[in-house]
């Protein structure tokens, strides 16, 4: 049951370039989306989120875009830095029902080359 899918297991970009991480979802009830970053031996760290009433949310170098009709969201990191190298998880939840559980994607490992 893959309600949240990250089809690219890995991505490599050059320092200074844009990193684009993609996420697709199948559950139309999802109403709130989050991106987490995870370093080895650490827990997921919240990066940025977006609710379904928006199509874009920006926080510094990180921007999340949401296309509800396509059930697709993406995380843009500009400019990419070597410290951004980590596994990025897309997550979604259905706050309208009161549920707080996050459904995670399988993650994309980003490698930013100096």
């Amino acid at each position: 049951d893959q309600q949240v899918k990250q089809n690219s297991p890995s991505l490599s970009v050059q320092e200074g370039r844009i990193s684009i991480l993609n996420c697709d979802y199948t559950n139309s009830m999802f109403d709130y989306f989050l991106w987490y970053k995870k370093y080895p031996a650490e827990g997921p760290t919240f990066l940025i989120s977006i609710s379904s009433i928006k199509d874009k949310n920006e926080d510094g170098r990180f921007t999340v875009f949401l296309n509800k009709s396509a059930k697709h969201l993406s995380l843009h990191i500009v400019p990419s830095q070597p410290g951004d190298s980590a596994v990025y998880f897309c997550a979604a939840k259905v706050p309208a029902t009161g549920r707080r559980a996050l459904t995670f994607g399988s993650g994309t490992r980003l490698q930013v080359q100096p």
Partner: protein
Amino acid sequence: EPEVTQTPSHQVTQMGQEVILRCVPISNHLYFYWYRQILGQKVEFLVSFYNNEISEKSEIFDDQFSVERPDGSNFTLKIRSTKLEDSAMYFCASSELEGWLTEAFFGQGTRLTVV
């Protein structure tokens, strides 16, 4: 910066033994969670806890699992009789009560190895 802390960082246990994983959530948070990640797989929700009771649980969270908030600061996950397939990273998380649109903050995880 406040953070969620988990102990121990690594626990090795024999199959069939009981294990208790401990967490100290962020102090002003009122929702607590356990997630797990089996090696090479995605992070999976186990259970959420609010107001001293389970508010939501997944099908993974069967009778072998239980959670407790024994005092004002700790939040524990107990696995009664561990199985080999319980080997995973277990993450505790917490979030504020107010607003549905709040993120969960995760601890660094406990690696459970069942042998």
